[in-house]
């Protein structure tokens, strides 16, 4: 038990890091503009992230598992730690880092170290979502923004009433965003531990949770701790760098991003696609930051074309996207070597 908890510590750290950084993409503008108090934002984020992780976390987690079947706790610990340290380093360089890409890089590092092949089909599917994610978010944001703009600009709703609607919309969108983040990105936190740690089903408050769901619950709590302890500072600064968002634009960005994360984690939606003869949706963790940037760019295009986007910062983000998986893969490889040869822990069966 103690050993398991020790090895899970890297996942908890990863979860904390995700909560500290990614919750800002959901409630950043709302808290930054003081429309929603941090306390309310944190409470909604925590509740819905945990709910999303436990209820809908399975799809993306299994999608990530297909990239590398990490079957020992020591290996999972190193992979998770490498991704978490990469996220921390990239954050210190001031780059909007992607947790999803860090974990994928770390798994590839494990595959390289253990000599397991990396399935090119799975890898292509995952990397494909890195491209589709922001594009899809951009399209959603453009469509949603056009609809919202038409409704708001042509409405005769009193400014004060609209003010209240906007706040409520931000809260609902935030809840959806938090749910989708939990459902999709819990794979980054706990995905590598699913095969390495076999937990029996347990009953919690009348609910029977499978071993996998218990891991997701734990990961959800770690994310929640990250939200509560560290996300406030990030929330207060988010939105100022790439593109200044109005509350209405922030609502559009959050919904568009959440839709993308939801689509890539919903087994129900994927099954629905299959049932009507469409190809299944690849259920893999996608970068919330990337989707967020895609949505912001989408709104930027509708509002005033490419000229109002900060290209220098976009370039920095793009650099981070390439550097993140490479850095985490290298780190994972080196740390796995130490784990196996210095700490004498097997990193695979």
């Amino acid at each position: 038990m103690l050993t398991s908890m020790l090895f899970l510590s890297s996942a908890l750290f990863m979860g904390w890091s995700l909560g500290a950084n990614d919750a800002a993409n959901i409630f950043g503008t709302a808290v930054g503009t003081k429309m929603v108090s941090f306390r309310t934002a944190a409470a909604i984020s925590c509740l819905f992230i945990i709910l999303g992780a436990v209820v809908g976390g399975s799809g993306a987690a299994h999608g990530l598992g297909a990239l590398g079947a990490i079957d020992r706790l020591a290996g999972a610990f190193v992979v998770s730690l490498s991704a978490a340290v990469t996220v921390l380093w990239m954050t210190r360089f001031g780059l909007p880092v992607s947790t999803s890409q860090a974990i994928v890089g770390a798994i590839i590092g494990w595959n390289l170290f253990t000599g397991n092949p990396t399935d090119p089909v799975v890898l292509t599917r995952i990397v494909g979502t890195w491209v589709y994610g922001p594009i899809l978010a951009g399209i959603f944001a453009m469509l949603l923004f056009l609809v919202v703009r038409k409704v708001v600009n042509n409405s005769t709703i009193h400014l004060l009433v609209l003010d209240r609607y906007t706040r409520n919309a931000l809260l609902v969108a935030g809840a959806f965003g938090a749910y989708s983040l939990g459902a999709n990105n819990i794979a980054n936190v706990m995905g590598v531990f699913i095969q390495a740690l076999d937990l029996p089903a347990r009953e919690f408050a009348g609910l029977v949770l499978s071993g996998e769901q218990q891991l997701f619950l734990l990961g959800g709590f770690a994310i929640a701790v990250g939200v509560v302890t560290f996300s406030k500072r990030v929330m207060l600064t988010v939105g100022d760098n790439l593109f200044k968002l109005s509350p209405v634009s922030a609502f559009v960005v959050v919904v568009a991003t959440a839709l993308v994360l939801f689509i890539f984690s919903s087994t129900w939606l994927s099954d629905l696609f299959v049932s009507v003869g469409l190809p299944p949706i690849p259920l893999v963790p996608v970068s919330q930051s990337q989707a967020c940037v895609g949505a912001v760019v989408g709104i930027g295009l509708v509002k005033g074309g490419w000229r109002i986007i900060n290209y220098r910062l976009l370039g920095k983000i793009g650099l981070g996207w390439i550097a993140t998986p490479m850095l985490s893969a290298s780190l994972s490889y080196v740390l796995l070597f130490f784990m196996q040869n210095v700490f004498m822990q097997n990193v695979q069966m």
Partner: protein
Amino acid sequence: MKGKGMQVFTNKSKELMENIECYLTQVTSASLHFDEAMKDYIAGRMVQFDERIHAVTTIEREADAELKVVKYKLYAFMLIPDTRGDVFMLMDDLDDVIDYTKRLLLELSMEKPVFPEFIKEDLALMCGDSVKAVESLMLAVRALFSQTKLVEEHVNRTVFYEKEVDRIEEGLIRRVFASPEIPDLACKMQIRDFCTRIASLSDISEDISKNLLVYAVKRMV
């Protein structure tokens, strides 16, 4: 069913809307009283003129009290800080309109300038256009709250009336200084001064309307 907290909030919001509406009505009333007061003064109906001054003074006092309530409620119940700041500034600016009309009427009653017959018609026209500028401004303000798209149209009207007032003002001043009917330079300067002050009401309206346009652009999604 709405929660109790939301119900309380909705009522407060409604209260604030009513307070703002009441305040806007007071600004409009003050400008209408100003128009009537000017007509009375020009026609020499001094009793009615004094009654109008009393009415404007009362409105100004009540509007100050209402503004205080609006400002408090804006910060207590309105949620978007950016919009709140804009509404706050706008309400403050509108207070200048009431204050100005009251001050101008009081100055008239204290200084009692004598307007020669040949400028009375244009003077009344200038007062009317100044008030029209205020009325257009008030329509623009109301549009900001419920139909942002119309703000620009009303602002354009305000600007139009301000230009009209400037045109009339210039003609009036030229005629006053060219006229042999007013031999005293001091009288000419006093009349010019009052013409400028009356015209300033439309300048104030124009300045506010320009800020209003910015608030409207910010509100448009």
